[in-house]
């Protein structure tokens, strides 16, 4: 069996309803009308920013994002359609899934950056696999400390060296995210060379996340 990972489709904002098809009120989300409660049926994929009713931007306020998600959830969550007919229930399921997927993409700093890079025509993870040059040198060193610590018994010098390593990697990740934020604020023009640099930095963050997860598992015990 083979599975090819398709890139998440990027929605055309024009093909998305902006006014309620029932009452004509302006829409904050193309999924449902906040005025009359009618659920919309957008014909195309809708961008995660549009679903939640936010302008496309990298640097977003997480608190505002969460509030917006809750507001849309009050319009489309399946719990409010449990006693409705099967068509409405299915639509609420689909809209609920769209909303949650959009929230997952936007609340995660890496996935949000990944979406923006691709929406601006930048390279995908498969197309650009490099990490920043200066970063590569350190990776070899970190891997060595990590491998030695992981195979050593708890309490040993090698194991104790993982605590400062975890702090260092967390610091590196924060620094890399600051670079991503700077490069994506304001949004670069479509196809800008800076998008390749952002992709490389995102690759470095993915490495750091894997290493940090391994360190965490060693610290709190294997997940069941």
């Amino acid at each position, binding site marked *: 069996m083979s599975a*090819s990972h*398709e890139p998440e489709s990027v929605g055309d904002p024009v093909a998305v309803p902006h006014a309620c098809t029932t009452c004509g009120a302006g829409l904050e989300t193309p999924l449902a009308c906040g005025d009359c409660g009618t659920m919309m049926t957008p014909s195309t994929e809708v961008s995660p920013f549009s679903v939640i009713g936010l302008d496309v931007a990298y640097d977003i306020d997480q608190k505002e994002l969460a509030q917006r998600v*809750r507001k849309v959830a009050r319009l489309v*969550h*399946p*719990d409010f359609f449990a006693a409705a007919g099967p068509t409405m229930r299915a639509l609420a399921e689909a809209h609920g899934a769209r909303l*949650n997927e959009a929230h997952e993409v936007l609340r995660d700093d890496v996935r949000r950056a990944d979406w923006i890079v691709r929406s601006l025509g930048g390279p995908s993870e498969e197309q650009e696999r490099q990490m920043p040059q200066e970063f590569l040198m350190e990776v070899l060193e970190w891997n060595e400390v990590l491998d030695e610590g992981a195979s050593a018994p708890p309490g040993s010098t090698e194991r104790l060296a993982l605590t400062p390593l975890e702090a260092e990697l967390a610091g590196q990740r924060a620094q890399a995210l600051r670079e991503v934020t700077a490069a994506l604020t304001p949004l670069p023009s479509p196809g800008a060379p800076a998008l390749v640099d952002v992709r490389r930095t995102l690759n470095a963050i993915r490495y750091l996340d894997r290493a940090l997860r391994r360190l965490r598992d060693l610290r709190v015990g294997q997940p069941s």
Partner: protein
Amino acid sequence: MGYIELNVLDNAPRRVVIGIDLGTTNSLAAIWRDGRPEVLRVEGEPALVPSAINVRPDGSLVVGRAARALAVDDPEHTVFSVKRFMGRGLSDLDVDLASVPFKVTETESKLVQIHLRGRVFTPQELSAFILRAVVQQATRALDGAEVASAVITVPAYFDDAQRQATRDAARLAGIEVLRIVNEPTAASLAYGLDQKKEGTVVVFDLGGGTFDVSILSIDDGVFQVLSTNGDTHLGGDDIDRALIALAQRELAGRVDTSVFSHATYQQAVRLAAEKCKIALSQDPQADLALALPELGVALRRTVTRAEFEALMEPLVERALACCRRALDDADLEASEIDEVVLVGGSTRIPYVRRRVEETFGRVPHTGLNPDEVVALGAAAQAEVLMGGRRDILLMDVTPLSLGIETVGGAVAKLIQRNSTVPCSVKEGFTTYVDGQSGIDFHVVQGERELARDCRTLGRFQLKGIPPMPAGMPRVGVKFHIDADGLLTVTAKEESTGTTASIEVKPMHGLADGDVDRMLTESYERAKEDFEERRRIDLVAEIGTMLRHTHANLGVAKARLDRETFEDLVDAIAAAEAAQSSQDLPAVQAARDALDRATIPLAAVLMDDVVKEAVAGKRLSEL
């Protein structure tokens, strides 16, 4: 004898929606009434229905308190903790199998079968009997109102197969499931924590068989589950087992070790351990006492609270490790928790409360009965689903990652655990042989890297792909986890627009056909049950008729002609024999024969009565 039929033309029975906590040890129901949830209990009876089933020698079933009472003398035919078997295969039950006194097998699709007195039950069927008992109790508590549908709770950790099994059990019990809700999230609804403007809540649920911890955020009436963790084999039963092991250590050397595998011993020691455990929540020390003279077992061992706490320590540590992982997944520190909610009977244990309080630095909520909290929350959720209130919203998460097996047995994760439901993911598949018309794939749930270490959800087969060169078809497969946490899969070949069909082979579960067959069987069983009741009624009627006939046998002999009298004597003998018959038509025939044979006697007796009544009266007075 004639009956007066009272045809009371009442309104149709009220239809209500309830919340049901289908528990490992106990089950119960609650309803939303007058703006708050309320446990459904019949006056003078406990609200909890023990999740126990006993099969009687005649094959009939006893459920609930009566079944638990029968368990002491008849452990081989009593099932406890059937929830542990739901949606699982034999290989998942290794811990429990040694301690169950009845035979357990599994089908080819790894569906567990429980053998009791020659009858075979799936866990779904047994759970359906418990659900029926809960609904019956609810109906009585509601003065006959009909239970139309229900919200049923499951542990947050339940995977797709276990949720599906719960749904099927409800279907078998004739209940429409409005929603499957996670127990810990239901619990926080019960505490009305939605009244809080903002906050973070930990729900610590240590029940009889499972441990769950959930971390929720509450913001303006919206409950969002940030993370869940837990252990499907950690609960009050394990605490009992620690005491059972203590009893065993005390008895070792004094009794023959074969006693330990004796079913009577196992049930008795389990009850003794439970009793000792409960007493230790009140008293500084309690006795672990056991007297089974027929097995030569006599034990009275005083257990101090300190000793008990030492036994529990590793178990509580396991629960707290789950809590730490849940905090980590939610990206929170223990100090950021605002509220702690306790659920499950085991949270009555002072040591458990103390350790939880130490871990989170908060005094836990204990205002509600920890056995009832989940059912109360389920009733609150039922009210939301019926459109009764829109002020609260529960946004739940899927507890396990969903993935598919790729080349080499690795797992490609499609949906990460702790994703808010409903959620969907679309995945592209293609062929690797020219003209290939189907693709097989293996869907798993779990966190491990290799498919063989995860739980199989099902093997799906995509069929009907139009013939094309290898790699050309673009089959989009959509995996959707709905608000109940259940998976549906749909597929479409995108280059031609052909809808590919999906064949699901559920593991540990019932196919749709199975459910239909079981429903038919249960109707047949209902017919059997009806016939049995009819037979019992007829035997009672025969008894009454025989008493009357015997009392007037002297009159019959004196007044009836010889042939009629002999017919009567024959009918009496046949009816007496039929009293112990199990065959309904034979009993019915004997009763009818006796009825006919007594007609002449009845006529004679009636004559006498009439003569007496009209004696000394003129015709005009009649």
